[in-house]
């Protein structure tokens, strides 16, 4: 009896070990499938275990057009083309959308670009450049959809080469915090723009898309980017003679103090060197050059440090990868 009991116990232990191994194998198999899918975007597993998650996703993001001019320098995958997708604007488009969680190339066209669409003769963005970027939220279910959208910039130096199996240009990413901060403060993104007046600055928290959506329909979102020519456009009053004489426009409404507030609270994003007593300097320049209290030295300090920052960006940053993240 004791012998039998001991044998049974041994058998049970063996069984427990086997079951445990089966479980481990299952976990490993499933994880490998996910990892495999995540990193390689291998089409073979589409519709497999990873495909299940895709089917459960309720939206994708996408864009219309062709590859950007410099996409060969950027590690990103080709999206999936959906033909004749109806949009909320009444048109139909061929939409290149995200799939399997991979980072895809944002398609560019004549109306939506950062001077990087095919055929664009510009040789790069610079202070004074501005434009529109369009993308679509593609609904896979009829539902009330809320998507948080974020923009992120990755800076590359001049050593970038064509991306290959062994080169993803990650060694060319500029990690210098100051340069990253300055770029963030000088190339600005807004949710709205009317007649050259920008509003709703897109900050670190991104912005939301919230709508009742219909299955298989694409919802157009436009965002506006601008690299101001001079700091004057953000700080001087609209009718200031400095702006008028130089034939440049203020790009925010006179009542919009978003940027000047940031000049004070996060000046390292805007000015190359620290400006002493930035709070009162900004307040003084905001008065405008016609105001008797306006001190030209303050204006010169702002302008000089802003321009130096532009110079720093222009001379060190060769390419900027703009990534739109939706979740």
């Amino acid at each position, binding site marked *: 009896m004791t012998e039998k009991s001991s044998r*049974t116990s041994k058998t*049970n232990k063996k069984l427990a070990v086997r*079951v445990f191994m089966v479980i481990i194998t299952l976990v490993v198999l499933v994880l490998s499938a996910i990892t495999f899918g995540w990193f390689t975007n291998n089409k073979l597993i589409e519709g497999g275990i990873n495909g299940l998650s895709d089917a459960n996703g309720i939206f994708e993001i*996408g864009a219309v057009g062709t590859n950007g001019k410099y996409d060969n320098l950027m590690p990103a995958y080709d999206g999936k083309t959906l033909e004749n997708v109806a949009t909320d604007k009444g048109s139909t488009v061929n939409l290149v959308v995200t799939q399997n969680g991979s980072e895809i190339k944002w398609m560019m066209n004549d109306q939506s670009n950062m001077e990087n669409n095919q055929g664009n003769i510009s040789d790069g963005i610079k202070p004074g450049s501005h434009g529109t970027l369009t993308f679509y939220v593609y609904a896979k279910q009829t539902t009330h959809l809320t998507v948080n959208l974020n923009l992120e910039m990755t800076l590359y130096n001049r050593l970038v080469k064509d991306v290959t199996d062994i080169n993803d240009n990650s060694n060319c990413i500029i990690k210098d915090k100051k340069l990253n901060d300055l770029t963030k403060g000088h190339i600005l993104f807004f949710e709205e723009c009317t007649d050259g007046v920008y509003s709703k600055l897109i900050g670190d928290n991104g912005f939301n898309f919230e709508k009742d959506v219909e299955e298989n329909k694409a919802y157009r979102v436009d965002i506006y980017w601008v690299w101001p020519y001079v700091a004057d456009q953000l700080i001087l009053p609209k009718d200031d003679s400095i702006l008028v004489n130089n034939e440049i426009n203020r790009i925010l409404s006179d009542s919009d103090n978003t940027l000047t507030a940031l000049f004070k609270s996060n000046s390292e994003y805007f000015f190359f060197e620290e400006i002493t007593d930035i709070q009162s300097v900004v307040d003084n320049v905001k008065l405008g050059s016609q105001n008797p209290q306006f001190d030209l030295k303050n204006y010169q300090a702002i302008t000089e440090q802003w321009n130096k920052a532009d*110079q720093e960006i222009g*001379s060190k940053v060769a*390419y900027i990868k703009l990534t739109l*993240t939706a979740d």
Partner: protein
Amino acid sequence: MNSTKNNKKFKTNMIMLCIATAIAIVCAVPVLGWFTKQRRMSTLAKVKPPTALNIGAGNKEDSVYIDLGDIDVEDSQVTSKSFVFCVYSDENKGSYKLQLAHTTNIPFTYKIYFASATDDQNEATVTYVSKENTNTYYYKKVKEIQGAYLNKQADKQIANENKHNDTYGDYNNVQINAEPLYWQNTSAINPIGNQGENGFVDYYILELSWKTGNLKNDKETDMVYLTAGMV
């Protein structure tokens, strides 16, 4: 008997555990995917490096070689002297303006002409001997550049007060001929001597002329500044 029952129960439990785990894992995958899968889309923009606009002498040599030197105004045969200079950049885009600033001790008339290099010595206005390779280069006038003084008194080659503060600030004890005249060309110049990827070199001739007979070489000097700026 009891042991066999327990044994069976254990086996059943183990199999159930195995199945339950498998189901749980398969169910967990899409849910995990649901939560972790971000949609990401990227584009790459090129940043244009700041354009460096330079002024140089003939043959795109350093501006230190633009030498106005001595001008003999008492030679009755000669009433003008010309110099070549160039505006160049390693970029081939953008337009620019020229500015000339000069004091007014000597009543020269200043004119700037678009110029082009030529091999024909006879049609050349200016001969430039390279300071780098001692070769001689010839330049001829193409067309006078239209421009205007920003602060000239009417009918006189003297400055008014308009640009005094830009030049001297609050300092007011300035002799009238030391007040510089500022001249700018009227419309922005698109680079002419485009060399594609290598940028451009545009040549100009600065001509100083005077009326003969009423001038003496009496050690008067003038300061002349040439500036080119992107617009």
